[in-house]
């Protein structure tokens, strides 16, 4: 009988027993789902965004469901570095699973201070650098959509931490490969993408925006194909690993990300729909590898097969047929 396919992957210094983790903000700090999910089976846990001091977040309503997804503007409510370490690390240390802390700040100095604050905390494997949250005015997306700012903040955090560093990229940029390369050049160990897409929902009866924050970030199945395209572009641009996320609800979407070039994937909104989804994604990836005769998940990273014209020199040589009308053909 053939041996089971290998699922192990590495992100920087983090050894993941399988490529499946959770997207920050969709899995709390760990204990919330521990009754129904075996945390030890996850490739890693990415906890909700942490700032230097406790942060209250936005007013409610903070979340609204839309077709194929949800728009949220939680506003990064969190207990701060000290509160998180005291309240949640004793729980997380009991598990045999790498813990990645998502961090954010309002200034470059704050980002660096948060990173430094985790330097000597036992049980933390890596930091995901949130430079792409659309829901707070200061910080967040401002750092992820301006190349100069992105450089400065990643460089500063790199100096402040020896942990595996993973900047989380915004989809809201003209060319994702630019930002992926900035991350690589500034010493990041990997990049993760995509964060939520800026979005808005209006209540037609009241004629008011539904969210207290007026706008929010769209997540869920609705953004999946957008995320696949961006992961594909980012993975082509850099040598460091890419963690793909956006609208995974089953192994199929996770495998799409891996074929597009992702080394690992994160399940987000689907945790709310089906708290057991990460387990079925892991099992589904393994079943896929068996079915297609691959001995390791590494064999399918970036294995998307492109048509010959692309191999010969890229999409620019493909003739685009114009329709003669305004807009795209």
């Amino acid at each position, binding site marked *: 009988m053939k041996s089971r396919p290998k699922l192990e992957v590495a992100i920087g210094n983090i050894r993941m027993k399988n490529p499946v983790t959770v997207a920050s903000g969709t899995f709390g700090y760990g204990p919330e789902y521990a009754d129904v999910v075996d945390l030890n089976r996850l490739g890693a846990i990415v906890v909700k965004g942490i700032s230097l001091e406790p942060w209250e977040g936005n007013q409610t309503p903070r979340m609204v469901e839309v077709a194929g997804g949800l728009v949220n503007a939680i506003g990064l409510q969190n207990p701060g570095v000290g509160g998180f370490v005291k309240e949640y690390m004793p729980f997380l240390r009991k598990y045999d699973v790498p813990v990645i802390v998502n961090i954010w700040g309002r200034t470059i100095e704050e980002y660096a201070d948060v990173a430094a604050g985790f330097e000597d905390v036992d049980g933390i494997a890596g930091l995901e650098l949130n430079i792409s949250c659309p829901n707070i005015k200061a910080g967040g997306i401002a750092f992820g959509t301006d190349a100069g700012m992105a450089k400065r903040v990643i460089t500063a955090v790199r100096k402040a931490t020896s942990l595996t560093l993973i900047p989380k990229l915004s989809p809201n940029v003209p060319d994702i490969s630019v930002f992926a390369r900035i991350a690589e050049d500034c010493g990041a160990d990997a990049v993760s993408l995509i964060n939520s897409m800026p979005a808005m929902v209006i209540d037609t009866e009241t004629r008011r925006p539904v969210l207290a924050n007026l706008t929010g970030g769209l997540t869920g199945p609705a953004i999946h194909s957008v995320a696949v395209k961006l992961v594909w572009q980012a993975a082509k641009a850099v040598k460091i690993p890419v963690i793909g996320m956006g609208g995974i609800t089953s192994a199929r979407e996770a495998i799409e990300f891996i074929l597009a070039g992702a080394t690992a994937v994160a399940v987000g909104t689907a945790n709310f729909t089906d*708290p057991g989804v990460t387990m079925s994604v892991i099992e589904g990836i393994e079943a896929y590898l068996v079915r297609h005769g691959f001995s390791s998940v590494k064999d399918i990273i970036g294995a998307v097969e492109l048509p010959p014209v692309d191999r010969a020199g890229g999409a620019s040589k493909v003739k685009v047929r114009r329709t003669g009308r305004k807009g795209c053909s």
Partner: protein
Amino acid sequence: MSDMRLENATVVKHEPVRGGYRLLVLKCRAIADATKPGQFVHMRIPSQEVLVLRRPFSIFKVHEDTISVLYKKVGRGTAAMDALKAGDNISLLGPLGKGFPVGGPELFPILVAGGYGIAALYLLAKQFPARGIIFVGGKTADDILCTEDFTALGWSVRVATEDGSIGERGLVTELLTRWMDKESAGASIELYACGPDGMLRAVSNLARGCGLRAWLSMDKHMGCGVGACLACVCRIRYDGGQVRMGRVCKDGPVFECRQIAWDNEITTKT
């Protein structure tokens, strides 16, 4: 660790109650065994391609290995539930949240229900060692549900509707206030309420004015239902007076009224 389970439930019965309200009876032994008064289940709605969020429902009754929920078709989620029929399977997460504290026999319990909020109060009424009065309110007679179940448990039922189509005309909290003024003397009253925000605030004001405790079950739009996403927060006073964004799904849905920092109190805060 809590008693939270992810359980595949089977629809036993799905039937109209009145006025567009429906009763859904679900076989789910683990959740039924673990349920305490005032807790809820987070239900995965059929047609998940479009709907990514579960929907929370108060656990109305528990009978052997079944639970029931009471709901009204108000949005896309409840509309998608319409097609559920006996034998269908549906995923439930529960029982969730901190429910009502069941008081001692020395108390005179007053329950206050608005519309389908009555569903959250039945198990409390059943388990309470004393019998008291349930005040039930709604817009019209169609919103007054299942009062006979409380009568059968030995509770006294008082009804108010805004249009006067059944019971007294007016708000249930006005009816309650009149009763408190005239008839409550000498009783060790404790209040338990579930209904719309306005009703809960009125109960809160009444309880605070009279120096009584009132346990309120809050209704907020929820995301995960387990305390992870922080969508359903409200300002809660924790021990020591510190006000923080508390999670209705996990730290609640039941709070003592003095724990809740209502919106207008926030605007007056400097």
